[in-house]
């Protein structure tokens, strides 16, 4: 077993939601500390919450630890605690080696100082000595790709991308034993981003420890040896990067979309957009299971049963119904577009006045794990080009993850691969 660089033991950190209470607690706590009164920090007072709750993990030499979690799950707080910026409220952190945190780039930059002056300022804040900066200044400026004349001009004249590149270049050349990186790889243009990533890879090879946060799951999976998934301050998963990413995607989808789930009834929904000439009223749609119960999620391998309710107000000679399904993240891009029209054995003409339910069964839906919604449902007469009704609902259904597969794209395939040597 290699050397332990970071050991986090039952670490907890609390914050206060209320500004007034936070002031009150702050003042009383500091006065108590000064008076030498020993007050406990491990219970919650009104308005307080655990930003991190009983976290334990280790980082060993040469390891890269990724931290995944939704916004507000405690990732940045954890990094600040590791960097020693915030004190813990419970538990203990042990750090072996010097630690460098890349939480925000360009710390302390002064807009009137030149690029060069700011490199010295920022580098010193990050803990470099002047001699060391003298040694590496060329590397820093080369890496930042900022031209010489700009480096002699005040930073205020820089574009935001240039500022970030300069700050990032300084931070990347500090070379601490342990580097903490918070979501800063998303900076700069594609070229610079790739360069930053390969610099991170370099760190890994030098057998330093690396802890980093990113929302880019792909990046995370490629860089990390191990991933911690945080949810509301708790570690909910710790281990293999691949499994962690699958797990994270699973909880992300469950968290964010529960309130928009398809209820199976149009009347309870707000229309996103609709058109109707009152010949057909669209009543609603939904998914049902084998027992005719309305559901809002299906399995990867199950059947997809859709029902569409509508009301016909006058005799309709001919009807075609368009039922598109779109990814929730990209609602203008149909991944399925079903056209339901009359065919052999299925009559959709001369429909009399009344209410109807159309059932559509997809034996195999082939939708990948993810969140989907119906596109604009259109009722029209394709022979006389009359549109009766076009309605779009803003609600979604899920294709549940089986927590085993992590496939990209909207189409779920079961493939059998084999490899044969060619002579």
């Amino acid at each position: 077993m290699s050397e332990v660089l970071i050991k986090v033991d039952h670490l907890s950190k609390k914050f206060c939601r209320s500004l007034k209470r936070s002031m009150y607690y702050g003042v009383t706590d500091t006065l108590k500390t000064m008076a030498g009164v020993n007050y406990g920090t491990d219970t919650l007072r009104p308005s307080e919450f655990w930003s991190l709750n009983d976290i334990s993990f280790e980082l060993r030499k040469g390891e890269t630890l990724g931290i995944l979690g939704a916004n507000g799950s405690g990732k940045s707080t954890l990094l600040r605690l590791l960097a020693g910026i915030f004190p813990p409220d419970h538990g203990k952190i042990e750090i072996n080696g010097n630690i460098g945190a890349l939480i925000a780039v360009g710390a302390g930059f002064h807009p009137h100082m030149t690029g060069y002056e700011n490199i010295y300022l920022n580098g010193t804040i990050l803990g470099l000595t002047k001699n060391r900066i003298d040694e590496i200044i060329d590397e820093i400026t080369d890496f930042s790709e900022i031209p010489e004349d700009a480096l002699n001009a005040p930073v205020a004249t820089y574009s935001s991308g240039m500022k970030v590149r300069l700050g990032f270049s300084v931070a990347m050349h500090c070379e601490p034993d342990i580097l903490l990186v918070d979501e800063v790889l998303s900076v700069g243009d594609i070229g610079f981003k790739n360069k930053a990533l390969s610099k991170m890879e370099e760190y890994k090879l030098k057998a330093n420890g690396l802890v980093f946060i990113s929302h880019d799951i792909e990046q995370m999976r490629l860089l990390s040896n191990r991933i911690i998934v945080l949810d509301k301050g708790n570690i909910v998963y710790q281990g293999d990067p691949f499994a962690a990413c699958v797990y994270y995607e699973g909880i992300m989808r469950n968290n964010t979309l529960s309130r928009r789930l398809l209820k199976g009834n149009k009347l309870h929904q707000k229309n996103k957009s609709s058109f109707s000439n009152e010949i057909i009223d669209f009543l609603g749609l939904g998914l049902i299971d084998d027992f005719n119960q309305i559901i809002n999620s299906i399995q990867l391998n199950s059947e997809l049963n859709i029902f569409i309710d509508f009301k016909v107000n006058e005799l309709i000679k001919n009807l075609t119904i368009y039922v598109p399904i779109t990814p929730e993240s990209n609602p203008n891009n149909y991944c399925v577009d079903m056209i339901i029209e009359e065919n052999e054995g299925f009559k959709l003409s001369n429909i009399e006045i009344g209410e109807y339910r159309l059932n559509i069964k997809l034996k195999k839906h082939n939708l990948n794990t993810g969140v989907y919604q119906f596109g604009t449902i259109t009722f029209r007469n394709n022979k006389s080009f009359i549109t009766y009704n076009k309605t779009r609902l803003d609600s979604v259904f899920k294709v549940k993850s089986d927590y085993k597969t992590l496939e990209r794209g909207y189409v779920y395939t079961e493939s059998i691969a084999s490899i044969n040597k060619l002579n």
Partner: protein
Amino acid sequence: MSNKVIYEPNQYAKIGFFKTMLTVFKNAVASKELILQLYKRDFLMQYKKSFLGLGWMIFGPIMGVVSWVLMDSAGVLSPGDVGVPYPVYVLFGTSIWGLFMSFFASTSQTLQIAAGFIQQVNFHHEALLFKQGLQNLTNFGISLIINVIVMLSFGVVPSWYIVLMPLLIIPIFFLAASAGLIISILSTLTSDVSRIASFFLSLLMFITPVIYDSSEKVVWLQQCNLYNPLTYLITGPRDLVLTGMMSNPEYYLLSIFMATAFFMIALRFFYISEKKVIEKMI
């Protein structure tokens, strides 16, 4: 690996009182380059976007002299007999007073000046305190030179005690910084504190005999002057330099002692609370 660090709840409070002083001193020495860089950033950069630039370091105090000379010649002030030409007396007094005020004002912003990066980077925050001090010393050094020029032009030759000036201002720094450090911590928590403090400090100038001589004033004001340590810390050095004598050396020593003790307590307060309040800098 070279160094091992442990973070625990309330760990700074567990360090002994005198060890705190030692740690603060060590940290400040360790961050001397940082102090220098921040000094450059905050001190030199304030003159950068200005035509006169560093010239303001000299013009500022000169403008002060002009206003006192004008007020004195117009007779709007009744300072009493102060023994030396009034402009010299008041300029030197207010320079020292100004040093106290700027020490206070800048140390009460100790944490605040780093608001942009204090939550992003871990560094020795003592550096901020010493950087603020250094910045004020530069200003005072320049105004001291102007003071000497004014003294000579009014025919007053400063006593040899003027070479002790760097030592004489240390207790002033202690007293100002102790109030400032406490305010800096508390004002990150609540803004009430800095408002109240600035009100009291503006009162303080009236109960310190800076622009007048105490002996001819009403009794309650004399009483205030008597119990105010600033009276001794400011008028002591002033009288030493202007006249070569000090009226109450025993009170002066007592005030130095008080200021030093107060400073140590405030430094301790700052040291054990600063990490706790940084998370509340929102």
